[in-house]
């Protein structure tokens, strides 16, 4: 079994979820795919050493975002996928997320090529997602994942939340960001009605898929 995607052989897929039944049910789709599911039953105390120790057998990863509820893993799944990306391991985030988690994921979104809902996760979408990841490793990002320098208007700053408009993406939709996710120098000066620039994947269709980097303010 296994499958070669873009010249890369994928045999085993690690399934990471802090809930026993969550791991099991995520494993169903992997079982039906050409890959062998490796269910990570025990908790992970250190992501770096986990990845280093398993890198030789980790061809790909499927992780839930919520991993901290139980004594399973000290970080959330967005960070797991990000770290995998840094090591060029294709990884997919399969999770249900609400408003409160959007910005947790957004922080790492530049290096999270695919986020699937549990309903969207099946053997076909798994293969497609892994292909998307490998394509990004090869330098081929989909247009909706490429960041361009664009103008950002700060609508309001309330406590730890910043409300912005990105006219180059959609001038009608206000997006809320966490202040602490911005670089320190920008965070310090940001205020309502200010205009700044950042690189944003303005080709994204949904606001939750947007990511931001290289902020600039005069």
């Amino acid at each position, binding site marked *: 079994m296994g499958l070669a995607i873009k010249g890369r052989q994928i045999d085993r897929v690690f399934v990471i979820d802090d809930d026993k039944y969550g791991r099991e049910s995520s494993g169903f789709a992997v079982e039906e795919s050409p890959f062998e599911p490796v269910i990570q039953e025990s908790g992970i105390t250190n992501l770096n050493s986990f990845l280093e120790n398993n890198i030789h057998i980790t061809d790909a990863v499927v992780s839930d975002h*919520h991993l901290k509820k139980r004594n399973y893993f000290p970080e959330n799944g967005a960070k797991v996928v990000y770290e995998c990306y840094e090591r060029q391991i294709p990884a997919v985030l399969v999770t249900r997320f609400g408003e409160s988690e959007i910005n947790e994921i957004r922080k790492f979104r530049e290096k999270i090529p695919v986020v699937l809902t*549990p309903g969207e996760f099946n053997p076909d979408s798994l293969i497609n997602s892994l292909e998307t990841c490998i394509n990004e490793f090869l330098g081929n990002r989909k247009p909706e994942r490429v960041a361009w320098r664009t103008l950002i208007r700060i609508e309001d700053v309330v406590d730890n939340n910043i409300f912005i408009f990105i006219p180059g993406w959609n001038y009608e939709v206000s997006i809320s960001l966490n202040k602490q996710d911005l670089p320190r*120098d920008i965070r310090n000066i940001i205020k309502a009605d200010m205009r700044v620039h950042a690189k944003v994947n303005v080709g994204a269709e949904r606001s939750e898929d947007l990511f931001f980097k290289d902020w600039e303010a005069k």
Partner: protein
Amino acid sequence: MIDNSIVQLAHIKFSTEIIKRLGEELNPSIDQSILELVKNAYDADATSCTVELEDITDEGGTITIHDSGKGMDASEINNGWLVLGQSSKSIKEITPLGRTPAGSKGLGRLAALRMGNIAYLRSVPKSNIESEFQLTINWPQFDSADIVENVELPIIHNHLPGNLTHGSTISIRGLKQHISERDVRKIARGLILLADPFDDDPTAFKPILRSPEFQEMEVLVSKRYFSDADYHLFASVDQTGHASARVMDYLGQTLFEATHEDILGKGNTTIFNCPATTFDLWSFILNSTMFTSRTNSITEIRDWLKDFGGVHLYQNGLRVSPYGNPGNDWLNMNLSRARSPEERPSTNNSIGVVRVSDSEGLLSQKTDRAGFIESDVFHEIRIFCQAALDWMAKERIGVAEVKRQKNREKSSSAATETRDRVQQSISKLNPADREEIEELFNKYDKATQAEVKVLKAEVQLYRTLSTAGITAATFSHESRGNPLKVITQAINAIDRRTKEYFPANYEAVFAKPIKSILNGVRSLEVLGTATLKLLSHEKRRITRVDVHDVIANVRDTFAPFFEGRDIIVDEDFAAGHPYFRSSEAAFESIITNLFNNSIAALENSTAEQRRILIQTVVQENIVKISVHDNGPGITGINVKDIWLPGETTNPNGTGLGLTIVRDATTDLGGSVFAIENSLLGGAEIGVELPIIGI
């Protein structure tokens, strides 16, 4: 023929217009200009510095500044004092008196010297106290010359045997404008505050202005009402960027103490990227009852704070304007106080000093001397001070809450005690009066007790509902995560596998139940999302609220409820988009509770098709929003009582929904109304709200 021979050596020349521009455009104010000259005296290690003002009530007056600094010889005047744009003093070189030079670039000095028609300098260098050097700059000469270099400035030397006093004197004569009394007060204040008068160091640099205003202020500043402060915050950042803080009471006893993590919040170990800094803030509770037992009056403190209040910033011992000037609130103290007034100092009731030991010169002042360039280092200092203020506020609120709790207990026992005393006094009255008063008092007592009972019940109900809300949100959050994920993934696996293993029977046997489960999951997802949507933080900020958009959003959120209960919702909206300013949450709570009310009423409906109609009508600056239903109408309860808390005809209801509608509407400046039977046959309940536009 090309021989590349040099025919002339050229230089960039400056028009005299440049001097005029620099001098005039960089001159922020008279007091600031004089301070620039006084800072030069500080850099020259002067121990005394006197400013004299003569004939200043009209144009043409004179400002003279004497100092006892190290003075200058001809070469220092020519190559230092007269060179603009370059500082002769490096901030990293400490003077023999241990001062870190302010390191001005001479532009402030130019601005000051340009205030008059003539600038005169006399200097006796410490290295040669038998020599006197004089220089006169006659500005009109510059106005008639084309370029700066064409005006020659002779430096005159006199050899005067016998020991002269070293130092410099600068006179600015023929002032172009008069100096008002207000300016004099500003100059006096600037001079007094320049070298940290709060430090109580007798050897500190103390410039003097010869004027009655100065003496008056000097007396005021020397009063030092710090011991009357109710709270003294002392916070510091060390050279490694770690902060600590403590708050002391007026006796100097420590009330609260904080480590770096306490200030920034547990787990936050970010360090401050700024030079070593200390922050003292004395905060006063200016309330006459607090001052009755003190030696100083509240008026004295108010006057003192009026002149010296605010948070002043000292870089290497010298004050940097405008931080702490009247109207300058660089730490946003007033804004923070406006947002959460409890236990927060403002610039009117506190005085503060931030002292930065900037030996590396990381903070640089703007060319026009109007504060620092807004660099990262400056922001870090600001953030440190604000974090210390936030921490102090949090600690003070904690104490205030404990006090409130105690007062609550005390006031309840105090009420019982007073009641007993009134009853005792009544029993001492003569029998004829006693009976009547006793009866009246008993009636009053009964009514009050009933009122208290209602209020207690209402508070209890609100608490219970809040807890129910929090629990619902937690459960929604939880169920939206794992259980729904497990069901979705498992049923999808069953769906795929039955299709693969039992293709012949799939449609007939499996398809329907699988679809039912998937539909059920979808409904559960929507219901959970609906609960969480109500709690979105974005909805709690004040913004432009579009009436129709919010109604449509609430209707969409409720769509699965309406569908599940076979209720058809119709809309009849006024043209346009009426809007007002408020939080979306406030308006949403009105619409949500009106919908909930109709949904509950329809449970008792006998109509074949259950209906809700939501209508908006705009009349002048008012939008009327009404929710009609075809339920039984308002029955079994008086119409005006439906708004009272706890009043409900629904056995499972809380009786609070319409009370919330009434309270939220009142907050928005509107009014509520209810009609027992209207358009659809059932009740019509609605609100009228003032709008800004359509």
